[in-house]
């Protein structure tokens, strides 16, 4: 006699959602791993330059930024060499932008899975959040060599790097859950996303330092959670760059809010995905 499997609890028609959202991550960790692994495997297959694209993208953006903003426009960079200043922000930014555009479509592009198999749907955007980390790591290694080249020696703040990486992932996850779930019903997300990402780039201190802005705009900028993450990472790497704790605190609060909002909305709509995707 088989016991009732806890993995398949009673499926009720009522609205009480008792999906163990967080414990599902643990229970289905292998599937999360395989989905992320699939994305990594597939990402650069049949691309001649392969994983080099993980460096090429931020590298060329950095070169353009250095030429136009660093040299021609003379944007300050807090005493850090401009290429290093912008590349250090472009590595997390490339991850963030890439994850959003992939994860935002993840439920729709995996419609065949959603309509044919049961598994916690959140694994799809989560897998993108995880798989993007590989590119992030490759970019980071390149950044490491750039720092050697520019003779920049990080201080003790370097120990905070993992904290910022985790908050970057959580932020990406929160927004991805929100976007992916909305995209199931409203395909507008697909069209709005590239545009949103483009705007977001300019309201994040990647090209310029936060101090470049007048004080009152700095407060508005702080509401962008990427601002705290980017500036926080800079503070981890460059010793003459103090940790902007105020900015970081706001960033974490906004990240937490987005994560909760994303999870709630995702949970609320999850049951209808297979019917409308």
């Amino acid at each position, binding site marked *: 006699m088989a*016991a009732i499997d806890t993995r398949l609890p009673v499926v009720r028609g009522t609205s009480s959602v008792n999906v163990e959202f967080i414990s599902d991550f643990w229970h289905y960790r*292998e599937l999360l791993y395989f989905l992320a692994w699939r994305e990594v495997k597939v990402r650069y297959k049949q691309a001649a330059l392969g994983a080099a694209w993980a460096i090429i993208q931020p590298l060329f953006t950095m070169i353009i930024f250095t030429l136009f903003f660093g040299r021609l426009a003379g944007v300050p960079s807090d005493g850090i060499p401009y290429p290093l200043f912008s590349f250090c922000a472009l590595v997390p930014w490339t991850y963030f932008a890439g994850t959003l555009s992939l994860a935002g479509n993840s439920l729709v592009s995996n419609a065949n899975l959603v309509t044919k198999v*049961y598994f916690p749907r959140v694994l799809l955007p989560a897998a993108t959040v995880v798989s993007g980390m590989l590119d992030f790591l490759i970019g980071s290694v390149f950044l490491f060599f750039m720092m050697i080249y520019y003779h920049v020696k990080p201080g003790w703040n370097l120990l905070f790097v993992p904290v910022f990486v985790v908050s970057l992932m959580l932020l990406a996850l929160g927004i991805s859950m929100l976007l992916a779930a909305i995209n199931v019903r409203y*395909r507008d997300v697909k069209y709005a996303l590239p545009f949103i990402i483009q705007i977001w780039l300019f309201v994040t201190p990647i090209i310029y330092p936060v101090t470049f802005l007048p004080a009152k705009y700095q407060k508005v900028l702080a509401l962008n959670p990427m601002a705290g993450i980017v500036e926080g990472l800079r503070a981890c790497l460059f010793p003459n760059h103090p940790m902007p704790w105020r900015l970081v605190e706001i960033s974490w609060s906004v990240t937490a809010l987005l994560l909760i909002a994303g999870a709630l909305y995702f949970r609320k709509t999850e049951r209808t995905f297979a019917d409308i995707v």
Partner: protein
Amino acid sequence: MSDAIVVEKLTKKFALGVLQRDTMLRERLVSLLRSPFGGRSGSENILWALRDVSFRVAEGEVVGIIGRNGAGKSTLLKVLSKITYPTSGRVRVAGRVASLLEVGTGFHEELTGRENVFLNGSILGMKKNEVESKLDSIVAFAGVERFVDTPIKRYSTGMRLRLGFAVAAHLDPDLLIVDEVLAVGDAGFQRKCLNTMEELQSGGRTVLFVSHNMAAVENLCSRCIWIDAGQVQMDGTPREVIEAYMKTFGGFQGAAADLSSIENRRGSGEIRYTGIEYLNRSGEPLSVIRSGDSVVIRLRYHASQEVSHPSFGFRIYTEMGTLVTDTSTWHHAIEIPLVPAGDGYVELEVDLLNLLPGRYYFSLWLTGAGSPLYDNIEHCAFLEIELANVYSSGKALDSRYGIVYFPQRWHLEGIGSGSRTSDQEESQVERTPADGISR
């Protein structure tokens, strides 16, 4: 025996407006502007995929679910598999569930066979070490040993199917839910599927499977549930349920199919098919056709004007779309100088319909001299061939044994107790079916 599945008052409704694929926010806004106070339109837009469905399945039962397309069978399986959620009612499922609604779910073209086995296994709920230990056996079962490190985009459709099914066959579930997997693939693949399900059955597993293959349902299942319009129409032994279900096809099959109202057809239309009928030799409508029966297929037509030198023909396909035969007056070099305007029919007499049980589809065609196409209707009618004791051996041949059989005789020299022969007259094999054309 304890229950493996308990379904209580299960109801699932779809608001049809929401089903549209590319829902745009704009449409919502537009409709809001047009009628800001008008609510969502009423009941006509609601589809009841399942309505108050209740049943229990005991452990070890093999239950076949039958019904027409759109009756709610797949929705039921999806609710049981937790893919979609019911509007009301509840479902309780015990044990490890494997649901196979599609073969090879999540296969990725760029990944190799081995990689896809891991991915697919993991999607279907296997642990990584479980896949590792079963990998060799899975690959051998699928017969793709040589291609295990080749991306599956280089695989043939058949290889892909076999690999997908091989993974599923190794799931070792307590409850297996299968949706019409048998409708795809060649006969060999289908046979493999059926054998695996038989093994599961004899291993005491609970199996729930949806099929249009009545022979498979009858052979495999201990019980059959017929679903129609989202409700359980009948629940009982496969034989009685299938019989009752088949009776509802009276209008479609057996007697005749009306083709005059079919819009989806090609051709210039000077002359068109208006109906197809299955008759016995004395001209009476046949409601049940078995393997080996003699059948007269009557094709009715309407000519809106005089047509000279037409050829009447049709093709028979299996459910999987394999062409079984294409035959026509042209193949028999029959000249029809003129068909006057008006209604009429042609008949093809088949002495021995050597098709094995299953559903076969008809595509009709009508061409003229110099091959202008007058009429062509694809898959416009079907023929359900029932089991028969074709070799008089007491062994009924079902669709697992292929598409056709031949009247035959085994000769065993010195090793058997004499030669056994089928009761078919061998002379029939030599004869070509006679064509009849009448007005």
